[in-house]
């Protein structure tokens, strides 16, 4: 019995277009163990698990549950095989109670919704594993951790034997994390097998029995947790440094451009997304921002761009090339424009923010400049058309025959080129980019690196949020590392090692903050 696998994946491959997200991966999950799936962003962890959860279907390979080959085509199939996946985005109905969410979609006793018996069943599960849950609480009144509890209980209520948790601790406080781990250990004792996707090394060491590491869609290896250390795991996760030959010349002089102090931002649920962040950015320098996904990168850039509500006490000061100081606190994007602050911003979610998908290239390029010509109610369409043509030519944007089709219909790389091109065409003094090369091929990525360096040499302060550590090390002058909304270190990009940055990303070091 003991050596029977709860789950076995054999030679799984999944491609999205030309991108190979999972390359021939084989993996076993033993019964009654907690397995950590470790890897950087984009290493293919979630994709792999989504094939167990019925979200994706593998292009190649086999899946075995309890030693039997199965086909999982939908979340329903996944449930039927006793697999329960808890996604990062909870699938709960806000106006329902915990109990209602837990039984949603299940055929009960003759269709009746017997709240007393459901409550009892939920309590039983809660007692058995040590959950803290009120079956009658409405979801909209719940904290993130409570919502997560509902998701886990929901899966257990449906009789799951295998639980997959996709970055469950990303949204939790340390106390809540401890609680979750206690519950996970109880579930393990009860014979459940658990896969936890995470970036946080200390958590891996804390909770799991075994670790599987993925990197860039490849299976790197597995190791007993007892025989692993933070250092050895980091090495497996980030791999050896690769030289990319990105040019990083030194700018002649660095001028103060942006001073940020006491920056704290809460999300809708009141969770701190940024916690007392402080840093300076200089003209003539690329400041890299590293951190695992969701550490506050988005909120940091949006705060500067005037798109976030800041907690009182925050200071964001912009210093123009002429030395004039301006506070950006309490200003919305229009105020910032009116103040003459030449700020450019390439946001993470291109169509969610930054571009209007149904408009054409010219009209999207116009987004930054349509206010030209004060007092003239009409649009100047010639100017943006010229800019757009220059962007299309300089950055080799491939468009089907003309610039009049909705930009949504261009490929991701071309869309990104338009966005970056537009932001640079505004001649900014402060340029912020979030994942500017995500989804781009190597050549285009280099084009963008060169553009950023060119801007830096012009004296622009560039803030580059990236995910590839090799790129961050070679492209940037300094690197600010975010961890859980806090600055865990600001380091010199030329002297720091990849492993050091990796450690800063996954564990908070107080002394790092002063290390500017």
């Amino acid at each position: 019995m003991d050596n029977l696998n709860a789950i076995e994946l054999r030679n799984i491959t999944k491609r999205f277009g030309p991108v190979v997200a999972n390359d021939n991966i084989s993996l076993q999950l033993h019964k009654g163990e907690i397995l950590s799936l470790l890897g950087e962003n984009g290493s293919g962890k979630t994709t792999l698990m989504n094939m167990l959860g019925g979200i994706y279907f593998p292009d190649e390979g086999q899946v075995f549950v309890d030693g039997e080959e199965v086909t999982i085509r939908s979340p329903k199939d996944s449930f039927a095989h006793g697999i329960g996946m808890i996604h990062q985005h909870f699938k709960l109905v806000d106006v329902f109670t915990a109990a209602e969410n837990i039984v949603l979609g299940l055929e009960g006793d003759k269709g009746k919704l017997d709240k007393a018996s459901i409550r009892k069943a939920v309590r039983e599960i809660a007692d058995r594993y040590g959950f803290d849950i009120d079956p009658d609480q409405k979801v909209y009144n719940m904290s993130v951790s409570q919502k997560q509890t509902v998701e886990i209980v929901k899966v257990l209520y449906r009789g799951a034997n295998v639980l997959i948790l996709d970055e469950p601790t990303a949204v939790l406080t340390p106390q809540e994390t401890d609680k979750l781990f206690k519950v996970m250990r109880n579930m393990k004792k009860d014979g459940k097998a658990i896969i936890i996707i995470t970036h946080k090394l200390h958590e891996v060491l804390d909770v799991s029995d075994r670790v599987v590491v993925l990197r860039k869609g490849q299976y790197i290896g597995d190791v007993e947790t007892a025989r692993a250390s933070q250092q050895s795991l980091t090495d497996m996760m980030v791999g050896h440094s690769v030289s990319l030959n990105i040019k990083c010349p030194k700018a002649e002089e660095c001028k103060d451009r942006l001073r940020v102090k006491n920056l704290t931002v809460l999300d809708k649920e009141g969770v701190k997304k940024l916690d007392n962040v402080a840093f300076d950015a200089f003209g003539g320098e690329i400041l890299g921002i590293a951190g695992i996904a969701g550490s506050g990168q988005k909120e940091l850039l949006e705060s500067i761009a005037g798109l976030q509500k800041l907690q009182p006490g925050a200071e964001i000061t912009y210093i123009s090339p002429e030395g004039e100081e301006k506070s950006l606190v309490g200003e919305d994007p229009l105020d910032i424009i009116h103040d003459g602050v030449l700020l450019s911003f390439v946001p993470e979610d291109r169509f969610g923010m930054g571009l209007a998908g149904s408009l054409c290239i010219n009209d999207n390029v116009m987004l930054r400049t349509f206010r030209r010509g004060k007092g003239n109610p009409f649009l100047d369409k010639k100017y943006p058309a010229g800019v757009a043509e220059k962007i299309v030519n300089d950055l080799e944007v491939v468009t089907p025959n003309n610039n009049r089709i909705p930009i949504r219909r261009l490929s991701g790389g071309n869309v990104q080129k338009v966005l970056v091109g537009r932001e640079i065409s505004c001649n900014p003094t402060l340029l912020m980019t979030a994942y500017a090369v995500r989804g781009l091929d190597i050549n285009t990525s280099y084009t963008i690196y060169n553009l950023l360096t060119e801007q830096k040499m012009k004296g622009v302060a560039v803030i580059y949020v990236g995910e590839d550590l090799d790129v961050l090390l070679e492209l940037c002058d300094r690197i600010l590392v975010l961890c859980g909304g806090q600055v865990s270190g600001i380091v010199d990009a030329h002297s720091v090692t990849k492993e050091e940055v990796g450690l800063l990303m996954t564990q908070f070091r107080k002394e790092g903050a002063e290390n500017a």
Partner: protein
Amino acid sequence: MLEFLTSLPTLLHSAIVFGTVIMLGALGEILTEKSGNLNLGVPGIMYIGAIAGLIAAYFYEVQGGGTNQIICLVVALVAAFAASMAAGLIYSFLTITLRTNQNVTGLTLTIFGSGVGNFFGCSLTKLAGGQPGQIKVPITNTVFTAYSEKLVKWLDDLTPHIGLGNLLFSYGFLTYVAIAIAIAMWFFFKRTRSGLCLRSVGENTATADAAGINVTKYKYLATCIGAGISGLGGLYYVMSYIGGTWESLGTIEALGWLAVALVIFTTWKPIRAIWGAYLFGVLYWSYYYIPGLDRSSMELFKMLPYLATLAILMIVSFRRKPEDQPPASLGLPYFREER
């Protein structure tokens, strides 16, 4: 003031008759909207329910010479319900399967339904002799307005000044059916698994889909059955309210929109539709019973139900209490992206 107080029982009586029409209309729409479909075709559906019931009754008792009261009842009810469901099916097919815009489709259905209602209403009138109001379906009308006179008299004698018997038990059976539907619907939403599934479809379609609920089936069923119930409101109007005939004054359309207003007023809760409908009736008819109003002020009084609805809509927006909000996916199309 005294005059007003003595006329209060009469006011309440007319409010309850009036309220029943819009209560049925609103209950159907609540069921529909709980599935995330905002059907602005309610007035059209009520027209279709009304005319279908009337035609069926007319052909059975006037053309066919039938006299069986039970058959009159069944024929009218089934025809009204089925025809309204068919109208709901048109809306469902267009919005759910062909993914057309819900607002536009609903409004088109209102145009279509009022056309169907009035076209056949006029044709039937011509068939019956030509003068407006010449259609008569006396037996069906009797069935739809019948009540126990004994019970009413007994209660009236017990409560001489108020006339409780007349106030509570002097209405046709659909008045009580409407209340029963409201309670049944409440039970369905709150106490059954299917009710839970339906609500989840209207609140968060993707979550419902992920939970293995057949979203399309629920939307179709809720919209069609909802249309059937709304159609009964139209039937009640022709059979009870105007006494089994047809008129083309556009009253059904006005009542249909009032039913849509009532849905907002109840914040999508069926039990509230009971007293909400009667309250609308009181507000609507109050001008008739408040002494000393001239005709123009009467018109302003007729505004009250709509003002009350707007007030509720504003309060609900200020307070942001999740339970009072429209179903979160209301009006949004849903289709699972191909994987």
